[in-house]
């Protein structure tokens, strides 16, 4: 049974030996851990993710980071340099392709070869394992800002080894957040263990005097996720990371759409992450928040998409996020060109800069939402702790099994999959079906009342159709969708 317990260093190195054998790039010299430590120690502060975040937090600014990754090394470098120069990205990513995420390195290799042949990227990201420390270091050397791996990989152990040894000073992911939304039938115990390894690696570097940043993946399925659910997962993963020795954490949240609820979610997230870290005895933790621009289905019109990007940037800055992950006007079509990507960055930075001197004023409504989210998070975490008899790793596994915590629309069979979210009249995400979610009756009644209010005013039923309408809503330019006539008159019409 998995345990939230710091991995013994011997165990770590034993596993490490195995991991590095998983693909031929694992045998690279630079994967010698002492070499890697030395290399990381030599990185100038402005290229260290953890340190740049500390500075940003001190200055109260919101920095921006795109998603980006292509199959071929040269093209990937060109892409990142372009985003740094033309997009003024503060942080760079390498979004990893889906074959690598599923550890299908041979498929990834075929994708690289095929891409070379066709002269365009056939992979949806950068196959970092195949390019190895060799390639990843080249990437690192060719840019002037910190770089992070962003993926969705249930077993990212080899990947994590390779990127950190290449000077990449941050890694996104977590045992829950990179499983439930990204896999179908991999056990949670397994992914939590895998990610304990990745965290232990970062913890090890920390012990050697190298501070790296870790970012639990916040938005989960990106689709109508109630803030308390994603915040709970972020907090659990922070605790798991802290136990392995991680000190510099960025907790994430995907924009929901209602500005007050989003700002409340960001504030609650930061406060409760710090609160629980302290409560569980982890000291000297440094916590920042990241807002992900709208993670659900995007509008296809490019002007509309740009407007959504700007709106998200307003929310991130008003909410005091230290980082924001940007989207592009190509979102609803496919992986963006570098030009489209840079445009999204420029629009985003314009807003984070323009409104940096403002914060959302305190209000009864804001305080109410913060309290509501915190109450729900407390009750979810309590359930997890209870299930694990004090051990949150075990507790998380059990709680997911029983549906005490449940992520909407997730592909994983390990997810209970019974809750259904919908929006209230102001567009705040509430819960329509609770399944077994560990929430109090009072909370359930609150959510129900909010949704009934909407159903009544919109003169419609509280049903799954409301959920579907809400899933489509933002891409159609609404937040709270009205009933859509299911007898479509013109089938080619945008729903």
């Amino acid at each position, binding site marked *: 049974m998995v345990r939230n317990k710091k991995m013994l260093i011997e165990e770590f190195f034993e596993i490490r030996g195995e991991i590095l054998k998983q693909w031929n790039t694992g045998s690279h010299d630079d994967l010698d851990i002492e070499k890697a430590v030395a290399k990381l120690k030599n990185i100038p502060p402005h290229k260290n993710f953890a340190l740049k975040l500390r500075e940003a937090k001190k200055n109260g600014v919101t920095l921006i980071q795109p998603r980006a990754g292509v199959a071929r090394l040269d093209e990937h470098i060109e892409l990142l340099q372009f985003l740094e120069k033309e997009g003024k990205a503060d942080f760079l990513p390498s979004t990893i392709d*889906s*074959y690598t*995420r*599923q550890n*299908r390195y041979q*498929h990834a290799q*075929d*994708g690289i070869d*095929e891409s070379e042949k066709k002269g*365009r*990227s*056939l*992979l*949806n990201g950068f196959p970092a394992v195949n390019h190895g420390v060799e390639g990843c270091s080249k990437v690192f050397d060719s840019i002037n800002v910190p770089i992070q791996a962003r993926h*969705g990989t249930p077993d990212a152990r080899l990947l994590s080894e390779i990127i950190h040894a290449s000077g990449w000073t941050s890694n996104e992911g977590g045992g829950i957040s990179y499983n439930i*939304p*990204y*896999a*179908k039938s991999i056990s949670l115990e397994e992914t939590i263990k895998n990610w304990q390894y990745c965290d232990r690696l970062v913890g090890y570097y920390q012990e050697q005097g190298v501070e790296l940043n870790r970012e639990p993946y916040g938005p989960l*399925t990106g*689709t109508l996720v109630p803030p308390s659910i994603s915040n709970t997962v972020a907090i659990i993963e922070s605790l798991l990371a802290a136990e392995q020795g991680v000190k510099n954490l960025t907790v994430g949240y995907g924009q929901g759409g209602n500005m007050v609820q989003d700002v409340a979610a960001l504030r609650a997230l930061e406060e409760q992450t710090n609160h629980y870290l302290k409560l569980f005895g982890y000291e000297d933790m440094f916590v920042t928040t990241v807002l992900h621009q709208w993670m*659900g*289905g995007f509008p*296809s019109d490019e002007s509309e998409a740009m407007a959504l990007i700007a709106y998200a940037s307003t929310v991130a800055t008003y909410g005091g996020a230290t980082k924001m992950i940007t989207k592009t006007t*190509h979102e*609803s*079509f*496919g*992986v*963006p*060109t570098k030009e*489209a990507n840079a445009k999204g960055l420029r629009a985003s930075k314009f807003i984070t800069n323009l409104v940096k001197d403002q914060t959302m004023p305190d209000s009864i409504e804001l305080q109410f939402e913060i309290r509501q989210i915190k109450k729900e998070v407390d009750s979810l975490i309590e359930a997890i702790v209870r299930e694990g008899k004090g051990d949150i790793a075990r507790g998380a596994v059990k709680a997911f099994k029983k549906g005490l915590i449940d992520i909407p*629309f*997730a*592909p994983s069979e390990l997810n209970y999959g019974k809750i259904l979210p919908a929006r209230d009249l102001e567009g705040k995400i509430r819960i329509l079906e609770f399944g077994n979610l560990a929430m109090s009756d009072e909370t359930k009644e609150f959510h129900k009342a909010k949704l009934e209010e909407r159903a009544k005013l919109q003169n419609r039923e509280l049903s*799954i159709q409301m959920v*579907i309408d809400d*899933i*489509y809503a933002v*891409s159609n330019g609404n937040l709270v969708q009205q009933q859509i006539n*299911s007898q*479509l008159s013109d*089938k*080619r019409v*945008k*729903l």
Partner: protein
Amino acid sequence: MKTVVIGVIGADVHAVGNKIIDYVLTEKGYNVVNTGVLSSQEDFISAAIETDAKAILVSSLYGHGEMDCVFFKEKCEEAGLGHVKLYVGGNIVVGKQDFNKVEKRFKKMGFDRVYAPGMKIECALDDLREDIGI
């Protein structure tokens, strides 16, 4: 009641559209067999054989559709499913490409109907009725 097989091909985990397709087609009176995300060509084909499906609706969102769908039609024919209609939709290639060309590529691969990004399942209902009835 006509049976259709749906699923998301390859290493693709985009689940939301798949759940909606399941719901909408069921509502419209089809017998929906859903292989879910991360489905291989074999998963689709065996489901279609087992249930005597009239159409296979392949979803691919994550961009690798072009690679994942290679030889799908051929495999269907080998399995005696040459008559089964093959649809594909979602975001089936990497990036924002000229859709006319994309459609041609997939039609050449043997797909009967190819849907552009943003074409929701509701847009395919008429085609489905025309091709296999309800």
